[in-house]
């Protein structure tokens, strides 16, 4: 293993040097171009100032692409090298090339159906005596944008980037979904963003609407074409209702439990209100609250005999960090995630045992 690490260390150093050289070349190209344009403008030479940028800017773009490719390649190689020992230490089977399938991920009911999906770093092992599989997963949503010339451009946004664990247990549940809500500073930040967006939109829309409504032409056409206007309004209203309904999972109801803190931390959905409360006993709720406080965001669902955990990525492999540091981080992350799952599984096991033995208070 040390041999492999040394090999990746040497590779990292080599590629890192190339990246640095490319970075320097990009800076020289861009600064040179800028100075060239400035000097031409200052010398009132307007005949040839844009010939050089025509060569340097595409060249800089090509170099940026090469740089990004190298970084991605290096990150991938480092991931392989650091995750393998982190999992091997825990006697966990690891394969970088494989991953969970999209069907596996969607059966958790934790994440929406994406337009694009990727997974890697499949691991298989046992947690608290129960078999599990896990992998890194990334889900994207694609958006089509049309410019004024009618050209369409597709952009991708990440819906979820993290790691999902699927554990097979003897517990059989109809369906319980717990999704972490934003809390503390994260919630405040999100609220501020929403308020800014709403205020900006209102400030733009309301004066324009008033202006349009006061226009005599609009007034006349509104009276004449009340039907199309009301149709648009109804369609808009229906679209909102359909979006709200489709967001709710089939057969699942939103639920609240008696702990206000738990309700603040998690969005709860269930197929069976009684089973939900049998599973989420006060002890389990307390454990989940403590974990949310200590490890941050995570999502959890129990469907059939499977328990799904989704952890958003809390650290990413960075090519410019020393390998030893990355290896330590990877080990800590793996340790933390497995310990979290173990704690929850053990608490659930204990509750099930309590019921079986009849030790109810």
């Amino acid at each position, binding site marked *: 293993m040390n041999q492999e690490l040394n090999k990746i260390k040497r590779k990292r150093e080599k590629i890192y040097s190339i990246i640095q050289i490319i970075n320097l070349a990009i800076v020289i190209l861009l600064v040179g171009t800028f100075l060239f344009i400035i000097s031409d403008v200052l010398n009132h030479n307007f005949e040839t100032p844009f010939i050089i940028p025509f060569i340097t800017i595409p060249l800089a773009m090509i170099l940026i692409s090469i740089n990004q490719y190298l970084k991605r390649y290096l990150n991938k190689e480092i991931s392989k090298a650091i995750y393998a020992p982190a999992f091997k230490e825990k006697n966990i089977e690891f394969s970088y090339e494989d991953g969970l399938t999209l069907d596996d991920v969607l059966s958790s009911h934790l994440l929406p159906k994406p337009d694009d999906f990727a997974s890697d770093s499949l691991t298989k092992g046992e947690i608290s005596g129960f078999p599990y599989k896990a992998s890194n997963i990334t889900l994207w949503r694609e958006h089509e944008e049309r410019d004024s010339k009618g050209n369409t451009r597709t952009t991708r946004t990440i819906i979820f980037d993290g790691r999902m664990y699927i554990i097979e247990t003897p517990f059989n549940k109809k369906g319980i979904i717990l999704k972490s809500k934003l809390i503390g500073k994260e919630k405040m930040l999100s609220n501020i963003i929403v308020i800014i967006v709403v205020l900006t939109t209102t400030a733009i829309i309301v004066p324009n609407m008033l202006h349009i*409504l006061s226009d005599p032409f609009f007034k006349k056409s*509104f009276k004449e074409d009340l039907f199309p206007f009301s149709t648009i309004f109804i369609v808009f209203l229906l679209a909102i209702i359909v979006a709200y309904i489709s967001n709710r999972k089939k057969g699942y109801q939103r639920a*609240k*439990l*008696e702990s206000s803190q738990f309700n603040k931390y998690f969005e709860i959905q269930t197929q069976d*209100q*009684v*089973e*939900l*409360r*049998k599973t989420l006993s006060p002890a389990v709720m307390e454990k989940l609250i403590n974990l949310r406080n200590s490890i941050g965001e995570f999502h959890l669902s129990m469907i059939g005999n499977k328990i799904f955990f989704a952890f958003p990525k809390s650290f990413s492999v960075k090519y410019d960090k020393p390998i030893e540091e990355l290896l330590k981080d990877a080990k800590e992350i793996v340790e933390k995630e497995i310990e979290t799952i173990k704690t929850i599984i053990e608490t659930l096991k204990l509750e099930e045992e309590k*019921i*079986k*033995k*009849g030790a*109810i*208070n």
Partner: protein
Amino acid sequence: MTLALLLILAAIIIGFILTYNTVISKKNNVDNALGTIDAELKKRRDLIPNLVESVKAYMQYEKELLEKITKLRESAEKTINSEERLQIEQELSKALYNLKLRFENYPELKASQNFLQLQATLTDIEESIAAARRFYNQAVTEYNNILEQIPFTFIAKILKLQRKEVFTIPEEEKANVDIGELLK
């Protein structure tokens, strides 16, 4: 002007519909939760004849308690009024709790697989009853809260809706175990 009035009227109507639907859904949620408790209690009542039958041979000194359980079960089955039935069920819970405490005095019971199976099922059902009570209490709390909140309170007054009581911990769970009674 007419457009503005139309928009305000539409907003009022939509607001009224949403408020009314919220109140009704909270009320129905309470009824649903009560129905869930009833269903779990019914499961327990269905289990009692088998349980009594399986322990009768061993617990000859508890004849009186077993008879009481059978009678309470029968009257719970016959009672239509849900409040009265819940009261009988409370009595039944107390009696079953006492019976469970006395199982310890009959070690030979533990050799019976049938009894062990029934005991496990009873425990599971009682856990479900406790969970159903938690569901009911949550539904009642949410319902009681909106009865006092504006604008829901206006609709609640029109519909003459009243506050509902939450379930408290049954007496037998609160009370200390009567050792003297057990040693009789």
